[in-house]
């Protein structure tokens, strides 16, 4: 055995150990990442899952024309001003007789959501023959009642209800007159001050319009800029300067784009505040660098031989780009755009400054109606005093995450499917 071999043999065990340690560090880092993800998901899902359900209370409602002040149930005008609240209060008094004190009656009326009267109105509108009859109806419970029914037995004493109210609810529960149902209004309603009525419907529609505007502007502009810079632009100081600037812009904090939007689009062009058109323009500015950079990278991966082959067969420069380079680079460009869009979808900071942090109840009908977006809705709910909003916040985060995961998966699938290797 030579001296060198002996030396190597001696250090071999140490080198193996070193390698093992090195691998262990890697596994550990991944473990930390996964653990953080796990904690995040358990926390959000643990808090948020209950918001997908809400409780209803069954009451026997007599739709008395005198109390309602309605003589023709097909007349919308009359229904809009009808006293549905009065009918519900009467039903509650009948269910729990002997509550005469005014203060106590108020507590009793608080069991049913203030939105229940609107449900009742819609029901009567749908079937005018109900007028004058008596029916068992399920009415939406107030958020405090809903929260109480959702809390496990042992934690119930802490609830924000007085003992009398707890007694009533437990009565209803024991009689099977409460029901837990899927919270469909969470997806269809706009924001509301009453947690049981609030939903992410208007925020989703707002996000949709904002994303459409962003996509329609940033994709064509980004791709056109990338093609020009890669295929046509001369290499000189000026294009270098542009390249450096684009890379810098990609690293600028997003709130700066909000300030820019405020200064240019609102103050200079006079666009209205809080509309998806404006949000889309600002987010376009933010995503453009990402799209340009990924598109340029995609164009670079197309081998020069493809271009040279086309040129050799007599294609013009533009034909080379449109027939050969663009189709081959498109998958990469799409992936980049989807990732850019996903970033824009989760963005709040620039929108703070252009008035999209707003209370929006009505679902926007177009890109020029006041709107808010999903992450902003989450921000607003996280700051609301009512306890039920804690669950709603987490539920909205779950919806946002679902959208983001879908978009990112789409990007991965597209890349895997369409990618070509040379």
């Amino acid at each position, binding site marked *: 055995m030579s001296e060198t071999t002996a030396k190597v043999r001696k250090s071999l065990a140490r080198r193996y150990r070193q390698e093992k340690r090195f691998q262990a560090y890697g596994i550990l880092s991944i473990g930390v990442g996964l653990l953080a993800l796990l904690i995040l998901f358990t926390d959000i899902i643990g808090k948020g899952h209950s918001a997908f359900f809400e409780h209803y209370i069954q009451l026997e409602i007599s739709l008395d024309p005198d109390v309602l002040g309605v003589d023709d149930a097909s007349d919308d005008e009359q229904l809009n001003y009808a006293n549905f609240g009065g009918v519900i209060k009467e039903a509650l008094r009948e269910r729990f007789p002997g509550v005469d004190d005014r203060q106590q009656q108020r507590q009793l009326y608080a069991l049913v959501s203030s939105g229940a009267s609107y449900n009742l109105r819609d029901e009567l509108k749908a079937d005018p023959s109900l007028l004058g009859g008596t029916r068992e109806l399920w009415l939406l419970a107030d958020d405090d009642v809903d929260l109480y029914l959702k809390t496990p037995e042992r934690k119930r004493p802490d609830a924000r209800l007085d003992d009398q109210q707890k007694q009533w609810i437990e009565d209803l529960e024991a009689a099977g007159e409460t029901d837990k149902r899927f919270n469909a209004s969470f997806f269809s309603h706009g924001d509301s001050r009453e947690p049981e009525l609030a939903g992410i419907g208007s925020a989703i529609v707002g996000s949709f319009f904002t994303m459409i505007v962003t996509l329609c502007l940033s994709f064509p502009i980004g791709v*056109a800029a990338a093609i020009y810079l890669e295929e046509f632009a001369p290499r000189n100081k000026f294009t270098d300067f542009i390249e450096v600037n684009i890379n810098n812009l990609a690293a600028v904090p997003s709130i700066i784009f909000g300030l820019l939007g405020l200064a240019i689009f609102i103050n200079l062009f006079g666009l209205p505040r809080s509309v998806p058109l404006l949000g889309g323009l600002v987010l376009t500015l933010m995503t453009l660098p990402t799209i340009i950079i990924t598109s340029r990278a995609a164009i670079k991966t197309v081998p020069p031989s493809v271009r040279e082959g086309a040129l050799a067969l007599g294609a013009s420069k533009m034909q080379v780009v449109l027939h050969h380079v663009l189709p081959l680079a498109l998958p990469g460009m799409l992936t980049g755009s989807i990732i850019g869009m996903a970033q824009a979808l989760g963005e709040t900071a620039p929108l703070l400054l252009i008035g999209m942090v707003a209370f929006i109840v009505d679902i926007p009908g177009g890109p020029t109606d006041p709107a808010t977006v999903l992450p902003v809705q989450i921000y607003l709910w996280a700051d609301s005093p009512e306890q039920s909003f804690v669950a709603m916040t987490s539920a909205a985060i779950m919806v946002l995450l679902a959208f983001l995961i879908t978009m990112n998966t789409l990007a991965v699938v597209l890349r895997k499917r369409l990618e070509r290797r040379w």
Partner: protein
Amino acid sequence: MKFQMKATLVGAAAAVALASAPATAIARDTISIVGSSTVYPFATTVAERFGRGGNPTPKIESTGSGGGMKLFCQGIGTDNPDITNASRRMKSSEFEMCQKNGVKEITEVVIGYDGIVIANSVKGEKIDLSKRDIFLALGKEVPDPKGGEKLVPNPYKTWNEVNSDLPNTKIEVLGPPPTSGTRDAFNELAIEGGCKTFDWIAAIKDEDKSKYKSICRSIREDGAYVEAGENDNLIVQKLGSNPQALGVFGYSFLDQNRGKVQAATIEGVEPRMETIASGDYPVSRSLFFYVKKAHVGVVPGIEGYVKEFTSERAWGPDGYLVDKGMIPLPDDMRAKMAKQAQGLKSMTGKEL
């Protein structure tokens, strides 16, 4: 040729998209409201009810009182908001800014009160504080505990060093950052309130106002006061996990979290709806909104919104705003205010 056509089409589409963007001041049919985050929960409740009555629901942005004033006073015209909410009165400088920008006629409406509470977890001990205790515990510079008319950097570490009746626990207070209106009010009412109980400090006010302000409105920065962000919910949550800490936040958060936190009494007064409304509870402030009269009749529904806000079913003692934690005005003042608001009485600027 085909491709040139395509390229031209793409170009044209982009041009159309860009050209349609800078459309000037689009007429509005929804009321635009900005301002205080403290008034936001109340204003949104009113807006929602107003919207259910068949009107477009007003759009409300939570910009903070100061930010709201700035937007409100920017000028007349539908790109500017119609109403701004505030958790403090309009300053005379802001009124002048409004006047300068053509916002001449403004109606001021006082809507109710908000108490600022100091609370801890229900797991902790309930305590009673005086304003002087609060100043001594949280002021940046306090009178020398050894006596004499000298200021020293706040030396107190535990509550019973401040006042021997208080428990022997570390001073740890979670509260809002300086950008918040709640913090402004807390500084002014609680810290300054306790500060001027020292006669020799109060005497400085006449000599050197800015020195007095810097003594009486500064909060210590050595870690005893923790800025917990604008989010009051976060403070409530943190109190739950740390029974020794105290938190500073608005009354509506106390009201909604009764099972989790308890309020400290201040000068022996418990923060309750009645004590705040009567002014017995020392740390309370008025809430306002301001209406731009020039927009009434231009943007539909402003009068209706004001009417809804100032109706008994909204701001009365049994109204729905009370359920949200707002503290109503006394009966006679409410009647007077409602008349003023619905008649859209303009401010003169002298009242500020």
